[in-house]
């Protein structure tokens, strides 16, 4: 398998399309807001079943990249999803978990209501049919959140809310999953659970995942590919390649990266 992916990547890098494997290509992405150029010429080639982590200093344009992939921010450049046979299939179906869902935490809205409003045409307050209810439970089951179904959205902890939003982003199953990891509000344990679920989902559903992350330790442990972004792609490679590169150290400083596995705080934030 490893060999196959390696070969595929070789082909892709020679721009022969996505032979035998599906992938998403981001070509020449640039974003300018007002007079400030936030992203310049970002090129990424993402493969199905791979977890790509995007890291970078504050203000590097990580969240902006996700939002422009979503189409929420105007951008130059293309995004193309290519199916398994290599034919270009246009814009991918995108699932998105925002960094911080800003909402009224006193809202009388249960997790079931939220899913019902996305999955059924029937007004969510009228309740859902048994069939839809089972689908909702299945969705929540994927992220170990089935017990949260009757909880009020505002009563969830940071980690729980994150998992519920992940479950929502997986329905309908996207081709490209964008995750913007929260900077605060989720404890270390919650983050670890989240990473484990994401890793599992990637293998199970063969998804392309882009994860904007601030936790260098967890990225090293779970990501297949790491992209160091600072206005443009600075480094792009396996965690080992990126973490041993000098430019990585210039960006984050030396602490917490140089084989410092025991550093509990992830370091270098």
């Amino acid at each position, binding site marked *: 398998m490893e060999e196959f992916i390696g070969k595929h990547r070789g082909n892709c890098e020679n721009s022969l399309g996505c032979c035998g494997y599906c992938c998403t290509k981001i070509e020449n992405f640039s974003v300018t807001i007002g007079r400030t150029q936030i992203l310049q010429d970002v090129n990424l080639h993402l493969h199905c079943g791979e977890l790509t982590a995007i890291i970078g200093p504050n203000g590097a344009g990580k969240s902006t990249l996700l939002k422009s992939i979503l189409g929420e921010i105007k951008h130059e450049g293309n995004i193309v999803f290519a199916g398994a046979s290599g034919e270009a299939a246009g814009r991918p179906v995108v699932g998105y978990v925002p960094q911080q869902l800003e909402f009224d935490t006193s809202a009388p*809205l249960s997790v079931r209501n*939220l899913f019902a409003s996305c999955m059924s045409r029937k007004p969510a307050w009228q309740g859902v049919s048994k069939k839809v209810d089972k689908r909702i439970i299945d969705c929540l089951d994927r992220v170990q959140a089935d017990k949260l179904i009757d909880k009020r959205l505002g009563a969830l902890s940071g980690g729980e809310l994150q998992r519920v939003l992940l479950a929502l982003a997986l329905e309908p199953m996207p081709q490209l999953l964008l995750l913007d990891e929260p900077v605060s509000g989720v404890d270390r344990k919650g983050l670890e659970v989240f990473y484990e679920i994401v890793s599992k989902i990637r293998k199970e559903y063969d998804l392309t995942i882009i994860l904007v992350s601030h936790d260098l330790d967890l990225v090293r442990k779970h990501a297949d590919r790491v992209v160091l972004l600072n206005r443009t792609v600075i480094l792009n490679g396996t965690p080992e390649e990126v973490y041993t590169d000098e430019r990585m150290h210039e960006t984050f400083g030396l602490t917490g990266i140089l084989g410092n596995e025991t550093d509990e705080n992830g370091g270098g934030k």
Partner: protein
Amino acid sequence: MEQIYKILDIILPFSWLSYEFMKNAFLAILLIAPVFGILGTIIVNNRMAFFSDALGHGAFTGIAIGTAIGIFQPMWSAIVFSIAFSVLITIVKNKTKTSTDTVIGVFSSAAIALGVVLIYSKGSGKYSSVLVGDLLSISAGEVGLLLIIAIVIIVLWLMFYNKILLVSLNQSLAKSRGINTIAVELAFTSAIAVVVTVSIQWIGLLIINSLLVLPAAAARNVSTNARQYNIIALLISFVSGIGGLIMSYYLDTATGATIVIIAAVIYFITLGLRKRFI
């Protein structure tokens, strides 16, 4: 209409309901209560209480303009103006980075100033009735108009409830699920504009917003999911509406204001109960 009056006489043979104007007011409340309950839940969900207040001011200006021009019935030009006003605020709100409060405040006070100037330049004080309103002045034909409005609003609500819910939760989330958030917002604010404009002459500019906001705000205190929220808001809307009508009949008070007082009392009771529910 005669038949409906007869049916009312049979089902509800109360002395307060024996006059025709009371029957009309009663029917109007039956129609307007669910509409206000529904729109109120959406307004409170979207944190737009101040916005709907501004719409009332826009409606006032609309009526003033309608009277000044005097081509059509003031109500039709008022509806057109209110819709334009609400669309304008929504667009400006979405386009600028200025605080929403400021944008609404500017539009609201500009509208009311224009309205006051127009009304007094005509030299007639009779449109000061728009400020207080008189529910008992409603005619049978106007009850028919309310029926049409109620049906349209309820159908729209059933069709778009899920989308509006997602937009009110978080705009980005709604966008990422393929919802045209500005279109939803515009449709919904226009609906509020129409309802407020039509009913302002019976309820009055000063209290119309409390009638929209109070039932939903009270329901929110004691509900944990969307089902409870909507059902309780509708119930409070009906109870305060009909209760207020009956009380105002016996106490000889202004109907709209009495309704609002009952709704406010219910709100404070639910506020006290809040901790047990949330």
